[in-house]
């Protein structure tokens, strides 16, 4: 019981330790250092773009988008693969008037 109240006292002391806090101020010549930084490192538009792309959210979203496009493309190709190969074959046959002949056809040609 005594221990609990001593801890409570410590907690109250810690919380009230900031009651009369004074505002912290930066080291003198803050403006000079700020201007030096502002003038030394003018970020180009390429730098800004690189910074934007390097953001984790953007990078992660881009990777997801690329994966999604790849998966989509693979599925699309798988769907159209059979039909497109058929149509290519038909087109080739039409183009070259290719007639599928067998050995029996040759035999039948003789009068």
């Amino acid at each position: 019981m005594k221990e609990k109240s001593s801890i409570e006292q410590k907690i109250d002391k810690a919380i009230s330790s900031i009651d009369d806090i004074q505002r912290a101020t930066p080291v003198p010549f803050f403006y000079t250092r700020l201007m030096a930084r502002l003038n030394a490192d003018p970020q180009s538009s390429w730098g800004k773009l690189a910074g934007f792309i390097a953001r984790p959210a953007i990078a992660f979203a881009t990777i997801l988008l690329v994966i999604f496009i790849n998966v989509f493309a693979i599925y699309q190709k798988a769907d159209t693969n059979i039909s497109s190969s058929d149509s290519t074959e038909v087109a080739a046959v039409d183009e070259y008037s290719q007639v599928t002949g067998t050995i029996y056809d040759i035999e039948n040609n003789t009068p």
Partner: protein
Amino acid sequence: MSEWELIEQLKLKDERAFKTIVDTWQDMVYNTVLGIVQNAEDAEDVSQEVFIQVFESIKTFKGDSKFSTWIYRIAVTKSLDLLRRKKRKKRFAFIQSLFGKNDELINDPPDFFHPGIAAENKENAAVLFKAIGSLPENQQTAFVLSKIEGLSYQEVSDVMQMTEASVDSLLHRAKTNLRKKLGDHYMESKQ
């Protein structure tokens, strides 16, 4: 020069206007940032970033809120960004250490002593700041703006873009959490 004239001049990239703005708001920005990041060097860096952002984005300031509120928002956002980056780095270093790729010790940051605290309260305040640093982001922000920067509930609600009732609730939860964390700390140090 009035605040509006300063803003209009800054939109024209006038350096004197920028200097006046920095001189006027640097203490407020630095104190807020320091309260959140709890490191003097980081606070200086982030404060500079805040004013660079003010300089570059002044055209986007439409005057819907007070200029100081806008600057506070930038300061809070940049400070929280830094904390998130540090946490990510720490997590990454921890994962690397699991695979034996990083032998550096992942130490907790040293105790933070706020320069605006009276000498006799420094030790207690250091314990409190450690507990503040472990609060969820929005509770930490509300607590720092209210207790360290001394803003009213109305001003905190403007900066955090929420109602006063929400700020009140956040601060209540922050105090409850702080009491619990401080209690745990003192119990541990007794054992």
